[in-house]
């Protein structure tokens, strides 16, 4: 199975499993492990006696993880057959296409700098969002037209909520 971590694509296979002893192959390395996992996502891994702790949070069909190990945070994607299929179908609309503006975190709309129907240039600022006393403005990557503005100044928004659609 394929697992994506950052830019790396790893081939991962479960070789064997007995109680909490697991053997997992990642690319050309074989790991002989003792793994226990807490309900809250804390994972203790003993690899040849070496003790690692990882904290995981997941989202998106249970196949998309954020994993903390030591002082690192990794995005990890499980690409099983279903995910592969969906990916292949999605190939057409590449990530390059930016069809909306959203904020990764919740916040408040401070200012909207464009109007519907307006033609905007690459790098032009669309909207200013404030969270935790800090303002960020969101820009378009490519030239496009503002399709719809879904929020108003003063609105409270959620993380990931679509604010402006583009075309």
């Amino acid at each position, binding site marked *: 199975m394929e*697992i994506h*971590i*950052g830019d*790396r694509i*790893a081939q*991962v296979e*479960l070789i064997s*499993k007995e109680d909490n002893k*697991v053997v*997992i192959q*990642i690319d050309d*390395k074989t*790991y002989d*492990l003792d*793994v226990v*996992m807490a*309900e*809250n*996502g*804390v*994972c203790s*891994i003993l*690899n040849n006696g070496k003790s*690692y*702790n*990882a*904290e*995981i*949070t*997941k*989202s*998106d*069909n*249970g*196949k998309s*993880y*954020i*994993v*903390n*190990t*030591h*002082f*690192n*945070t*990794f995005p*990890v994607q*499980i690409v099983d057959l279903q995910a592969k299929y969906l990916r292949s179908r999605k190939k057409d609309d590449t990530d390059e296409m930016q069809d909306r503006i959203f904020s*990764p*975190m*919740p*916040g*408040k709309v401070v200012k909207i700098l464009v109007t519907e129907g307006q033609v905007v240039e690459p790098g032009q600022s669309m909207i200013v969002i404030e*969270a*935790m*006393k*800090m303002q*960020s403005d969101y820009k378009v990557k490519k030239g496009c037209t503002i399709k719809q503005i879904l929020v108003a100044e003063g609105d409270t928004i959620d*993380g990931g909520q679509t604010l402006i659609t583009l075309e």
Partner: protein
Amino acid sequence: MIKKILIANRGEIAIRVMRSCKEMGIKTVAVYSEADRTSGHVLYADEACCIGPASSKESYLVIDNIIEAAKRFGADAIHPGYGFLSESSAFVRRCKAEGIIFVGPSAEAMIAMGDKISARETMIAAGVPVVPGSQDNLKTIEQMKEMVKTIGLPVMLKATAGGGGKGMRLIRQESEIEDAFFSAKSEAANSFGNDIVYIEKYIESPHHIEFQILGDNHGNVIHLCERECSVQRRHQKIVEESPSPLMTPALRAEMGEKAVMAAKAVNYSGAGTIEFLVDNDHNFYFLEMNTRLQVEHPITEEVLSIDLVKEQINIANNLPLRLKQSDIVQIGHAIECRICAEDTENNFMPSPGIIKQLTEPLGIGTRVDSYVYEGYEIPMHYDPMMGKLIVWAVNREYAIERMRRVLHEYKITGIKSNISYLRRIMDTPDFVSGKYDTHFIEKNSDFLLKTTYEGTKDETEDIAIIAAYVDYILNLEENAPQDTDNRPISRWREFGKQKAMLRI
């Protein structure tokens, strides 16, 4: 004596104040905005009062609402914490008018120190050194040369209307004066339509060092030594320590004396902080006074073994200072790190959200002042600081080692935090050697933003893969294909969103 205190603040400082109140047998009243019903300080208090909507302008900053809460719950005193209304002289006056004790200085002292220009003048009159220079308009090159002679090189030439470095010139040699003067004036005129310029002594390798002071209502003032706060990013302090690695006993005595003079000049009562700029040659200049408790006050508490909030309350109770200047001797070394919900790798973007897992460090020499807990949703409306991690050890080297240990123990997921960034600060050679100034973060930015840490990249990546993979398999096995995380979105459930009437 004060029996009940309303804490006009939120988050970690509200809990910090309540802890000391609880120990003193003083009842506490929390105030909270609608976004803060589940905040730690509400749960901690004896009583709690909602004072308005999420926006602090409509809640924590509304004097009327806070006074009303104090009266409703019969609080005989108000502790303002830091931020919000803590430096509002109008609030102090209102408390006085309502017969409520304000735990802090008088409105007059606050006003005298609140305005930069009047503070500067007061300090000059009191004999406290300020950054040499003047904000007088330099009209001619002769005036300028005269001024440089008084101040001494290097100087910084600045445009009154300036900003973004425009119209600014650093002058190190006399030969540069003329050219700088005319070019800056014309640049300023072109950029801002205003060619007024002035000069200030340029402080090389500036250290931000502040002195904690305590004054009582009987004219006694002592200083509680210094805190080194030069690890700053955009004027936001990140790491503080005490003693300062730059300090010598002689300089401490001298700066401490000036800090006491500064406080006495405004008849200061309560806890306050005199901030200084200090250069590598130990010249120091008054910067400003903070007329309240500082975020970083715990490191002073640790090296002096005192409780500043208790001292504040004693002073508010009209008691004379418990301590004399001769009692004040720093022991060992303390470091504080501010733990913030922010994405250090993405331009320090704030990262509000739900804390999924939380492990706070414990054990010898460790202090955590925080207000968050597992399952808590950090609201987007306020400061990203979740708490402070403070260590104490016998010397600076041991304190750094301890800070590394406790940052390693600190685990938080669900939101982004600056913990690994702080951990890297503890490994930065300039920090480890103690040879740093306010340029530290800028100077070391590459080192500080290294993304991998400890062990090889592949190894830690593989561990992350294993953790995710095992979780994935466990879920498959449990035949419970859940669409998203089945862990709580927020631990706090609003009690019945549907407005139902239920009779059982």
